[in-house]
């Protein structure tokens, strides 16, 4: 059996059944009362109470973190082109695993200037020009 013999509808039907029995066995009323009781009995803790530290120390720690953060941001800006290319690479890797029909559906959903109509049926990612690929990646990254 090849990887595309299981129809989407069958997979969706299986997914919709997943967890139905467990959810039905959940005592919703008891859960609702337990949540209300927990909310009443344990009001949200402040950071200082939760960690058992004095607010003054917290301010000092925050100032140190701010300084460290500023340093990291400055360093990060220098490396931004590398980070972007990694991100684009990851999406491109996901795209390359799509079949031509799935790729066609993705492209059609993105409202790109070259739409589904002009897309050959059996063409995969390799059929895109450099400009088209760039536009697709830009659209996917929002």
């Amino acid at each position: 059996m090849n990887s595309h013999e299981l129809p989407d509808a069958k997979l969706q039907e299986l997914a919709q059944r997943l967890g139905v029995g467990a959810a039905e066995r959940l005592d919703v009323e008891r859960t609702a009362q337990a949540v209300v009781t927990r909310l009443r009995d344990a009001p949200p803790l402040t950071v200082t109470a939760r960690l058992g530290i004095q607010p003054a120390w917290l301010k000092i720690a925050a100032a140190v973190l701010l300084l460290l953060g500023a340093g990291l941001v400055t360093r990060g800006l220098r490396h931004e082109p590398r980070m972007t290319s990694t991100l684009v690479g990851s999406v491109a890797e996901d795209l390359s695993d799509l079949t031509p029909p799935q790729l066609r559906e993705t492209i059609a959903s993105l409202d790109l200037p070259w739409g589904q109509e002009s897309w050959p049926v059996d063409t995969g990612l390799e059929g895109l020009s450099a400009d088209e690929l760039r536009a697709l990646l830009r659209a996917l990254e929002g």
Partner: protein
Amino acid sequence: MPQAEPVAAVPTDAALIAAWQGGDEQAAAELVRRHARALARFLSGAGALEADLDDLVQETFIRAFRAVGRFRGQCRFRTWLLTIGGNVLKDAARRAKRSRAVPLGEDVRATDGDPHERAVAGEAEGRLRQGLERLSRMQREVFLLRAQQGLDYEEIAAALETSPGAARVHYHHAVKRLKEYLS
């Protein structure tokens, strides 16, 4: 002619959230009643053991109610709740660090219907659970939000802070890998 009883309007999630923020505990309870089963299904699909389900559902609602001030209506309350559930499950798995036995499919435990059909259906669900475990967290959550919860890509993207196009790619990638695993 007797006058018909006025039908009480069902409060929206937004109205219940506002009531809870105003101190109405019953509004919180109503939100739990409304969304607990969908959340339980999502958590179960994402790998939660049935024995842990009640605790995970409670913890998700507690976190959601405490953070509800940060909910800006970017997606439906239920969708936002499901993404919090995903975080709760991840934290619980990290704490427990125990190997998860794949539970029997729901239909194996059910008592109605033909036993053979139940066993076959239960086996298929068990395989799907195993397949879902092999996906990345993003692929798994996008798949469950789309295939199990029936959400559209715009809603999924808003909840997971990504673009609809990227959500669509994650979904197709998840379907492809699940089909390969199940075939």
